[in-house]
C-alpha cells in the first residue's frame, strides 16, 4: 500500500507538472489576448512529433532544444498570420480559428506520420531505473521529466517577476484592458507571448512523448483536460493553474490506484433488482471513472465557485 502511495504521488506530481507546463502558456495567452487557444494541445502534439523526428535525425538532446523552438515559431506564425487578422471579427471567431487549426493539425500530423504510435524511445543515457521503491523500479527518465518541469516552472516565475516583458504580462493578467493601451509594441508582445506559450507546450510534448505515447490523437486526449485545469484554477490565474494542475494530476493518478466502488463499501445490491442505472453506479469502481473525474470537478466548481479556485474575474 505504501508503495502504491509513493509511486502514485510521484506519478501524480509528474503528470500535474506536465499539465502545468501546458496550462501556463494557455493561461497567459488567454489573459492577454482573450483567446482561448483550442490548438494549444496540438502544439504539445507537434512538440512530440518534432521531437521524435529530430531525435531520429540529430539525437535527443539537440531535439530537446530545437523542437520547442520550432513549435514556438509555428505558434508565432499562427498569431501573426491567423489570429491577428481574425481579431477584428471578435473572440468567438478567434476561438473558432484555433478550433479549426486543432482539427487541421491533427490531420496533417496523421497524414505525415500515420495513425499508429511512434517508436519514440527514451534516450539511452536516461534509460535506467533511478531508484527502487520497495520492489518497483522508478525510471530515471521520469525523474528527468520532473526536473525539467520544475526548472521551467522556476524560470517562468523568475521571468514573470524580474523582466520587463514579464511585468507587462503580469499587468495583463490583472488588468487585461490595460494591455490595449501599451502602445505600438502590443503586436510584438502578443506574438512573443503566443510563441513562448506554444514553445512551452512543445517542450512538454518533447519530454512527454517518449514516456507517454506519441500518436496523432494525443492532442484530442489531453485538450479538454487543459480547459478543465484553467477553469478550475481560475481563468487568468497562474497560481490557480499551478494548483489545479497538481490537483488534477494527483486525482487522476490516485483514482486509478484505488479499487473502491459503492458495492465494495456498502455491499452488493440485491441481485433481484436487475440491471438499472443504480446497479451501474453501484458497481463502477473509482478507477473506472478516473477519466471523468476532472469534468465532475469542473461542474462542481462552476456551481459552487464560478470564478475557479483562485480566479478573481468571472470571465
Amino acid at each position, binding site marked *: 500500500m505504501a508503495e502504491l502511495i509513493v509511486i502514485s504521488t510521484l506519478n501524480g506530481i509528474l503528470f500535474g507538472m506536465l499539465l502545468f507546463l501546458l496550462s501556463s502558456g494557455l493561461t497567459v495567452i*488567454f489573459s492577454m489576448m*482573450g483567446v*482561448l487557444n483550442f490548438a494549444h494541445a496540438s502544439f504539445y502534439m507537434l512538440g512530440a512529433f518534432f521531437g521524435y523526428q529530430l531525435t531520429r535525425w540529430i539525437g535527443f538532446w539537440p531535439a530537446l532544444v530545437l523542437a520547442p523552438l520550432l513549435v514556438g515559431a509555428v505558434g508565432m506564425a499562427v498569431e501573426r498570420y*491567423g489570429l491577428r*487578422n*481574425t481579431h*477584428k*471579427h*471578435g*473572440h*468567438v*471567431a478567434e*476561438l*473558432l*480559428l484555433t*478550433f*479549426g*487549426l486543432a*482539427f*487541421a493539425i*491533427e*490531420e*496533417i500530423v496523421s*497524414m*505525415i*506520420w*500515420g495513425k499508429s504510435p511512434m517508436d519514440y524511445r527514451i534516450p539511452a543515457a536516461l534509460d535506467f531505473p533511478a531508484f527502487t521503491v520497495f520492489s518497483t523500479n522508478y525510471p530515471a527518465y521520469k525523474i528527468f521529466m520532473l526536473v525539467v518541469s520544475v526548472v521551467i516552472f522556476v524560470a517562468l516565475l523568475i521571468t514573470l517577476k524580474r523582466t520587463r516583458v514579464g511585468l507587462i504580462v503580469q499587468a495583463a493578467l490583472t488588468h487585461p484592458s490595460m494591455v490595449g493601451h501599451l502602445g505600438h509594441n502590443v503586436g510584438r508582445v502578443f506574438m512573443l507571448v503566443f510563441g513562448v506559450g506554444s514553445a512551452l507546450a512543445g517542450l512538454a510534448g518533447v519530454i512527454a512523448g517518449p514516456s507517454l505515447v506519441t500518436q496523432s490523437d494525443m492532442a*484530442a486526449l489531453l485538450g*479538454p483536460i487543459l*480547459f*478543465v485545469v484553467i*477553469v478550475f484554477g481560475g*481563468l487568468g490565474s497562474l497560481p490557480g493553474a499551478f494548483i489545479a494542475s497538481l490537483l488534477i494530476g494527483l486525482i487522476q493518478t490516485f483514482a486509478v490506484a484505488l479499487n473502491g466502488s459503492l458495492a465494495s463499501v456498502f455491499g452488493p445490491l440485491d441481485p433481484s433488482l436487475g*440491471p*438499472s*442505472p443504480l*446497479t*451501474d*453506479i453501484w458497481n*463502477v469502481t473509482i478507477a*473506472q*471513472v478516473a*477519466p*471523468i473525474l476532472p*469534468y*465532475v470537478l*469542473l*461542474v462542481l466548481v*462552476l*456551481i459552487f465557485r*464560478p470564478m475557479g479556485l483562485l480566479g478573481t474575474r*468571472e*470571465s
Partner: protein
Amino acid sequence: MTNPVTTATAATKDESGGTLSFYGIWLIAAVALVVLPLIFSSGGSLTSFSLIGISIIFALSYNILLGQTGLLSFGHAVQYGLGGFLAVHMMNAVASYDWPIPLPVIPLIGGIGGLAFATLVGWVMTKRAGTVFAMISLGIGELVASSSLILRSVFGGESGITTDRTALPHIFGWTFGPQLQVYYLIAFWVMISAIAMYALTRTPLGRICNAVRDNPERVEFIGYDPHVVRYFAYMFAGFFAGIAGGLTAINFEIANSAYLGATQSGLVLFAAFIGGTAYFFGPILGAILVTYLQLGLTNVTSVWQLYFGIIFIGIVMFAPGGIAGILMKHRPLIRARTLGTVIPSYLVAALPTLALVLGIILSIETVARYTASEGEGNVINLVGIPFVATAPTTWAVAVVLVVGGFLIARVTWRRVAEAWDRAATVARDRGYLA
C-alpha cells in the same frame, strides 16, 4: 461573425408586399421536399436526403445558440444524443407495451428529452456567455459522453440500443420500413421544425436573444435578465436538437454513445458556421454542404477531415459570414443593378483561384499518398489528369500551382475588391446600401 448587415430583419421591411414572397419561399421548400425523392429515387439518394434533413434541423437548432444568442457551444450533441436515446427507449416501450403512439410522434419525445436535459443543466451553464460558456459546454459534453459508457443499462455500452421502427402502431398503412416513408417523416419534421424555429426568431424572446448576442450589458438596462434569455435559448436549442436526435434514432434504428460525442458537436458547429450564422437560412446551406461532403468526400480521399478543417479555417478568416454571408452581400448590388460591374473581375479572379485550390489539393494528396503507401495507391487523378505522387514533376506542378495561383490570385482579388467598392458606392447612392 460581425457581419454588419442584420439578421432576419428583412422580413419586417415591407410587411404587406413581402408576405406573399415570404410564404412563397416556404411553399417552394415544402414542394421541393415532396418532389425531391421522385426525381432522385435511388436508395442512396434517399439516405443522403434523410441525413441532410436531420442535419438541417440540428444545425438550425445550433444556430439558436450561436447565431441568435451568441453562445458558442462545443457540446450541442449532448441534447441531440439524449433525445435520440429517449426516442429509442420510447419506441421500444411503445412496441412492448402496445401503447397507441405512432412513429411520427416519436421525434417529439426526442425533443422532450433534449429539452429536459437542457432545462436541467442550462441554468448553471448559461450563467456566463462567451469563452466560459464554450468551455463549460465542452466539459459537460465530455462528462455526458463518458458517463454514457458507464451507465450501460441506459445507454447500452458502446454497441448502443437498437429498436425497430416498424414495430410501432401503423397509421395510414405506413409501416415506415421503406426508407422513402422515413424520408417523408423526416421531411415533415424538417418543415415543422424550420417553421417553428423561424417563428421563434420573430417573437419577443427571439428578438431579445439577438439583443443579448449584440450587447448583454445593455439588455440589463432595458429590463431583461440576459441569463434568463440565454437559458430560454438553450432550452429551445436543446428541444430542437432532441428532435433531430429522435429522427436520427428513427433513421438508423439505433442510438449509441457516438451520438453524444465531440465529433457530432464539432460537425454541427462546422455546418452552422460554414453556412453562415448571421442568417436564418445559413445553417441550412451549411448542413447540406457539410453532410454532402461528409458522405461524398470519404469516397474520394482518405484525408477528408483535413479538407474540412481547411474549409473551416478559410471561412473563419476570409468570410466570417459563411456562405450565406457571401450570398447576402450581393443582394444590395442585385437590387441596385450594379452586380454586372463586379462579375468580370470575379471571372478574372476565378482562374488563378482555381489553380491555387487545385494546387493545394494536389499537394495534400501527394503528401498523403507519398507517406501512406507505396505501390498502386500513389496515382492521383486530378480533373482527369493522372499524377504520380512519387514523381518530381507532380511536386513541381503542385508548387507552381500553389505559388503561382497565390500570387496571381492576390492581385486579381484586389481587383475584385476595387470593383466591389465602386459597385457598392453606386448601390449606396441609389439607396440600397446603408
